[in-house]
């Protein structure tokens, strides 16, 4: 037990002696959290829309007014010329074209159906889908209004509309920051923890001190634990900073229990640091360690459900995320912080991450050899 403390003490001495380390641990995640939470958004606002109004009628103006009134679209250009609109799309000035054909109002009144054309630049498919949904809801709204105003005065066979009332739970204003911030906190303490642990043992290999340690009677498990604890403590400090920023800057109130978050974070960090140290025992240089750590980090983060929902991934990819520690922590953070989930609700995730931690730490301990072949 005392040997563990000796190692922990030495690691902390080295960490705090390195002047670049403290800002790296505290400031970098803070800045990233503040920047990324504002940047990583899926909401689309003020999209440039090119309008070709060939009808120039009351109805067409009313429809355009509806687009104008929404926050989503910015009516940047008007023309009668499709060619001109196409050019604007090509040059990236506009994201979509709304084309109101001649006879729009006439058809609407007399034939009771009419045509509109909406062209969307769909290079970013997800964004295009969102644009389409916004536009459809505006057009539908317009439709209902027309229905009520003009047509139903003459006819009474109004089709019954199935009306589904809805409410958004847990994030009633659908604020993306509320959704992103807990996940980003996970990412930040993950990156620092992973890189620091992956570089740690291999650094001692590079400078040669590992041999000096290997000739001592220190137990392998003690060595690994002693290496993990400092980074665990740093990770929990980062978590605390992250949660405070979430509270003060983004007004996110933790609905669930704070001890549950810290319990899960502890188990999670043990898993992550075990993995980092495992990498560290397997490689010969810090460069190799960083390369491997990056490789896994990119996969883990992109497949964590942080940016894209896991449910939307193909089945095989979903299966892979079962082995992704970040995915568990991101979902638990969202559950506990935003929904107030209890320990019972997160038990499956807690079980999975505990098994992962056990496996990682055992592997790291086994792979760390005092005696080489």
């Amino acid at each position, binding site marked *: 037990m005392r040997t563990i403390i000796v190692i922990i003490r030495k690691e902390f001495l080295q960490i705090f002696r390195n002047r670049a380390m403290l800002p790296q641990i505290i400031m970098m995640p803070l800045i990233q959290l503040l920047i990324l939470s504002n940047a990583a958004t899926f909401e689309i606002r003020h999209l440039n829309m090119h309008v070709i109004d060939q009808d120039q009628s009351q109805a067409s103006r009313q429809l355009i007014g509806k687009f104008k009134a929404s926050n989503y679209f910015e009516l940047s250009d008007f023309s009668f010329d499709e060619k001109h609109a196409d050019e604007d799309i090509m040059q990236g000035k506009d994201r979509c074209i709304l084309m109101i054909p001649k006879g729009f109002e006439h058809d609407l009144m007399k034939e009771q159906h009419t045509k509109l054309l909406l062209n969307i630049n769909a290079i970013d498919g997800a964004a295009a889908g969102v644009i389409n949904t916004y536009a459809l809801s505006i057009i539908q709204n317009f439709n209902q209004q027309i229905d009520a105003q003009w047509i139903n005065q003459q006819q009474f066979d109004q089709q019954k509309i199935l009306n589904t009332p809805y409410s958004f739970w847990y994030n009633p204003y659908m604020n993306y920051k509320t959704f992103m911030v807990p996940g980003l906190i996970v990412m930040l303490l993950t990156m620092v923890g992973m890189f620091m642990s992956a570089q740690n043992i291999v650094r001692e290999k590079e400078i040669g001190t590992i041999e000096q340690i290997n*000739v001592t009677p220190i137990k392998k498990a003690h060595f690994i634990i002693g290496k993990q604890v400092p980074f665990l403590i740093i990770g929990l400090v980062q978590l605390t900073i992250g949660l405070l920023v979430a509270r003060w800057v983004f007004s996110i109130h933790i609905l669930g229990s704070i001890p549950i978050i810290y319990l899960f974070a502890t188990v999670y960090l043990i898993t992550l640091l075990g993995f980092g140290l495992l990498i560290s025992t397997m490689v010969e240089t810090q460069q190799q360690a960083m390369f491997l750590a990056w490789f896994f980090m990119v996969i883990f983060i992109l497949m964590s459900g942080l940016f894209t929902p896991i449910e939307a991934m193909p089945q095989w990819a979903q299966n892979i995320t079962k082995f992704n520690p970040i995915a568990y922590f991101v979902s638990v953070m969202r559950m506990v912080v935003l929904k107030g989930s209890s320990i019972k609700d997160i038990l499956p995730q807690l079980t999975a991450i505990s098994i992962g931690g056990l496996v990682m730490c055992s592997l790291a301990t086994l792979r760390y050899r005092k*005696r080489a072949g």
Partner: protein
Amino acid sequence: MKLTGENIIEVENLVKRFGSFTAVDNISFQVKKGEVFGFLGANGAGKTTAIKMLIGLWSPTSGKANVAGFDLFTEANQIRKNIGYMAQRFSLYEDLTVIENIQFYGGIYGLRKNILKERAEELISELGMESFRKELIKNIPLGWKQKLALSVAMIHKPKIVFLDEPTSGVDPITRRQFWDLIYNAAEKGTTVFITTHYMDESEYCDRVSIMVDGRIEALDTPAQLKKQFNAESMDEVFLRLARPTESISK
């Protein structure tokens, strides 16, 4: 120093192969308790490989060995408690101070706090390093570092201390002081196992073995070796043994 005649290291037919290359080729020797045992050889002769097997850093390919009364294959951790090691490569933490290094290594050898404190003070005053105490290792001269490394390697008072080319790169005065430290340890009953390629240093050893291409070609006291090879100095002894290889490599 008194030699009791009791063997503290016994090596029998020890072999280490890396692929098809045989670094240590079937060596056998004994080291007596309290002895200063010199392990000589040219660069690449297999000295470091042999030493790393004896201290449990590398597994031997075959053979038998007993170090400090324990079997090398089955009781490596018992051996670790009873030996000290100073590597060829510098092994103190550059970003820790003198006292922090002493406390760290003493700590992982499991020394109790009060004993460690006592030893640290003893060690610092013995080396005359009071003024360096809180200095980072990277800021102190190499000679001091080497002397400190030796003392740190013996902080737990091991039965045997293995020194792998401890004096390479230091000036003659520091080397002299270094040997004073070695004699000091031997005086107290520590067995010293030292590799070197300085032939003048081999004269300070009780017995010397000379390795050539992974084999031990000679083993005796410096005086006997000089007699056996009809040489005036150990330098000459060494050249006679090593020359065949040298001419091949040239």
